[in-house]
């Protein structure tokens, strides 16, 4: 009996001493290989009498199982040690900076963002988006909009002109988006509900004026829309755009050649050091002009003013962007300073929706 115990002791010592996969394999072969110690013991079984064979057989098999278990355990330990040794050599300096996500670096211009906000708000109220060319005729920019030839009101517009044609007519850069009202009325039958964002031009340059700027215009033509609807739409717009629960607005009579009655609209606000808060305070800030479309304009666009009626409004996209997002200087909009664009611009995935919030 002692021979089995001795063999077991020796084999388990060899297994325990195996320091790598090869040594362990050698120990396994020495125990269980063709010429291994346990294999040798098994070979002796056949020479034993049956009753002894049974008891000795079970002893040798017990030995074999324990050795196999020891081999497996040792193999696991060696593998773990080897992995640890490998991992110990594989460390990275994870504090090194990675490249920023391109979509986090890129920006859309505030004018783009605000135009998308306007589109979301007015699309929800049933408005489509109309556009027209920057190079316009005098007829569409002025005459059809009821600017009398050489009326002092044309003094209010400092217009960029192109050189006259042989017939004396000359094209111009549109001074407002209103010629698109004319184009829309000439092209489609009422009901008309459009907003018209676009570039506009006036020969003007200082901190609050640039020779190029952006306007958005709204136009509704049907058989029933009146000043009360206009007030409602503009109030709804201001609440949605400035993202406030209530907003107090003041409609002041004014004058534009293409509307009658004409109104200018102020919004109540509180001016603080670096920002303007809407829906509170006791200051007024002018944000847009509007009115009922002038009967002459309807007539000029082929609509009978006794049959059709409607209203229009217009405001500066750059200006309402400044009011909402706090830019101080209009000129910076067009200077393409990447510091300004990165600061005031918007991430491409921050797409304004009514469902998700315009600016959140």
């Amino acid at each position: 009996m002692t021979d089995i115990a001795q063999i077991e002791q020796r084999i388990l010592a060899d297994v325990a001493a195996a320091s790598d996969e090869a040594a362990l394999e050698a120990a396994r072969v020495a125990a269980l290989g063709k010429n291994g110690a346990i294999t040798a013991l098994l070979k002796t079984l056949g020479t034993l009498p049956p009753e002894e064979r049974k008891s000795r057989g079970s002893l040798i098999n017990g030995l074999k199982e324990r050795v196999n278990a020891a081999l497996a355990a040792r193999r696991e330990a060696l593998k773990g040690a080897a992995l640890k040794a490998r991992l110990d050599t594989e460390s990275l300096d994870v504090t090194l900076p990675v490249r920023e996500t391109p979509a986090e670096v890129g920006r859309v211009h505030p004018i783009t963002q605000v135009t998308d906000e306007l589109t979301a708000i007015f699309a929800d109220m049933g408005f489509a988006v109309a556009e027209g060319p920057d190079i316009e005729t005098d007829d569409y920019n002025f005459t059809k909009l009821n600017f009398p030839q050489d009326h002092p009101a044309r003094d209010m517009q400092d217009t960029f002109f192109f050189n006259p044609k042989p017939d004396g007519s000359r094209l111009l850069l549109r001074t407002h988006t209103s010629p698109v009202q004319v184009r829309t009325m000439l092209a489609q039958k009422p009901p008309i509900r459009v907003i018209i964002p676009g570039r506009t031009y006036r020969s003007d340059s200082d901190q609050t004026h640039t020779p190029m700027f952006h306007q958005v215009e709204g136009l509704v033509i049907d058989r029933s829309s009146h000043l009360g609807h206009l007030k409602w739409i503009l109030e709804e717009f201001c609440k949605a755009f400035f993202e406030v629960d209530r907003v107090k607005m003041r409609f002041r009579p004014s004058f534009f050649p293409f509307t009658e009655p004409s109104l200018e609209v102020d919004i109540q606000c509180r001016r603080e050091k670096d920002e303007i808060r809407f829906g509170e305070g006791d200051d007024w800030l002018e944000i847009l002009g509007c009115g009922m479309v002038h009967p002459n304009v309807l007539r000029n666009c082929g609509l009978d003013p006794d049959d059709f009626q409607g209203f229009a409004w217009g405001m500066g996209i750059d200006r309402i962007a400044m009011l909402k997002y706090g830019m101080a200087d209009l000129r910076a909009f067009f200077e393409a300073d990447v510091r300004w664009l990165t600061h005031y611009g918007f991430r491409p995935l921050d797409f304004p929706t009514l469902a998700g919030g315009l600016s959140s």
Partner: protein
Amino acid sequence: MKFTLAWLKEHLDTDRTLAEIADKLTMIGLEVERIEDRAKLLAPFVIARVTEAKPHPNADRLRVCLVDTGDGKPVQVVCGAPNARAGMKGVFVPPGAFIPGKAVTLAVGTIRGVESRGMLVSEFELQLSDDHEGIIELPDDAPVGTGYAQWAGLDDPVIEINLTPNRPDCTGVHGIARDLAAADMGQFKDAGIKAVKGEFPCPVNVALDFGAAPSLCPAFALRLIRGVNNGPSPDWLQRRLVAIGLRPINALVDVTNFITYDRGRPLHVFDAAKVRGNLVVRRARPGETLAALDGRTYALDETMCVIADDNGVESLSGVIGGEKTGCSAATTDVLIESALWNAVNIAQTGRKLGINSDARYRFERGVDPAFTLPGLELATRMVLDLCGGAPSQVCLAGNPEAPERIIDFPPSELKRLAGLAVPLPEMRGVLNRLGFFVAGQGERVKVAVPSWRPDVQGTADIVEEVVRILGVERVPATAFDRGAAPRKPVLTAIQSRTRKAKRALAARNLIEAVTWSFIAKRRAELFGGGQPELALANPIAADLSDMRPSLIPGLVAAAQRNADRGFADVGLFEVGQVFRGEAPQDQLTAAAAIRRALAKPSGIGRHWSKRDGAVDAFDAKADALAVLAAVGAPASALQIAAHAPAWFHPGRSGTIQIGPQNVLGYFGELHPSTLEALEAQGPLVAFEVILERIPAPRTKATRAKPALELSPLQPVERDFAFVVERNVKGADIVRAAMSADRKLISDVGVFDVYEGAGIAAGKKSIAIAVTIQPRDKTMTEAEIETLAAKIVAEVGKRTGGVLRA
């Protein structure tokens, strides 16, 4: 338009406060721009007496004064004014008050060791004049302790309104008062003007001489006043004029200026002694000039209307008078003119000569024709009151009568256009107070428009009058029904493409710029623009003169400005209009981007990971393809041709097209000469595509995507390396490999391009990975070998490429 509160009250009987009146002015369309309330500003300044003035112990020029301010306790003030002396009366202000002339708040001071608890002020410090030689001296009867502004009559608030061009009637205080009275701000004072009986015929005649051409002068009234005693006008008149920023000249001139502002009725006075013969109103003749009252000489032309005598032109009608016949203190006989002029002609003349006079301001808006003669009578009365003299009869040429304007007005228009239900009596009340006359009841009434309201021409104008005076706040906000129209996309195809292009480019780390639509001519020319029909006639600056043919020059300039500020690695894009011609269809929408220096799509600037290096043409190509993919261009139809317009590097640029007839755009490095001409430094790559050029996708009946086919068979990938001539295009090798079996080969990628050791000079190696997707059954090795051989043969046949050994 400026006036004072006291002046307004000459025409409006009211006990409303300044704030109420100002607020109402704004709400009826006469927007208050500014109120200068000097009573408030000057409230701390009181009349005081200097009781004692001793030399300052430590300063020769200063005095230590004790000042009685009326509350019994003398105040010690250190004063440096040479006229400060005991017994005088002046104006005192205590510490804590704001000194408008110096824009500082006064504090208790110690001047050379002596405490000073206030200040005796000069006119300069009160912003009354430029006089800061000495402190204000007041007469002995000035009451100590009384507010100075109140005592001196400086407490009349000045109101400035921003008058819209449609309201000539409110270029005078009288008209403003009428509007306020209509809006329930008081009682309008509208006493009639009595005609002054002429004592003799006017010795100077007036002829309107326009030949067969239309008259530029509907009416001209003239009167002589003989034996006037001209001189400074009285204090009250001078104070009125000064308050609104006019300089008093002499009584005769001041009367005309006063009536201009009081009634919106400009007048002119000639010194009759300097007028030779009769007056003729006519067009100016070429070469005529006028030395005007503003001290400048104007060259006139036949578009302008003048008043001439036997000496020539004496006055530029309705715009400015001539210096020669102007009235001075020595004037004894004065001719007063009250005329009507053609508004458009006045505006043109004023604009052409750059004259912004009070007369032009009113005549170009349209002066009340019916007030031509009353205005002259009012002026006569004032001249007689102030200067004495004997008036002639009025000499009148032309006809100042205004044609009657009657509008057929259905009162229901108010509800229809304004959404406001107003009972007829209320409507009538408003219109009557504004000077309109309403006749009739029921569904249609007749509204007669007063002569001073040329802006009221139709029913909408009457609606405005009523709404304006009743207040727009009475119009109830009414919910707007979006209607039964189905909810469809509201963007047109090009709007949608613009929007997607912007977000796609920003998602590639590019920053959106908005640059001017106009650029310098030479820059436009570099990019195929600069056509004469796209050049502005009146550019605001020489470098903003021509409509841009491309977005690239603006972006390059913007990138260079950033580089000059220390930001060399910039990637900018813009999506916006470019101009190929003046017609609407020649305005196209371009999407363009530039990348400069290390602004790579993978990251901007240097990075430890070393995956950097300067931008190259492939970055621009990737940007271009990203935009095209985002806006729905058919990827499989796009071709890349190895050429581009002259502003690109000839060897490092390409064209993206769908067949040679439809060029979508270009990409690549900019030509070094282009960069030099743009005064910009590279490395710089750019792309530009035209969004209109992308074919519209086919409209589909269903939104469902085509069924997905997933093969159960595993794809096989085989690599090949071909040696080809250097000028062979990679795309041709890919296309050749694809063509070996269009059914089985699902993809061909280029994974290596190599030139150098091991490859013969003038040749290159291109390695491709071919993905083979078995269709019906797993392919055997022999079948795959057969296909591989076909690929090699096909590439060899089409490109001359041989398998690399």
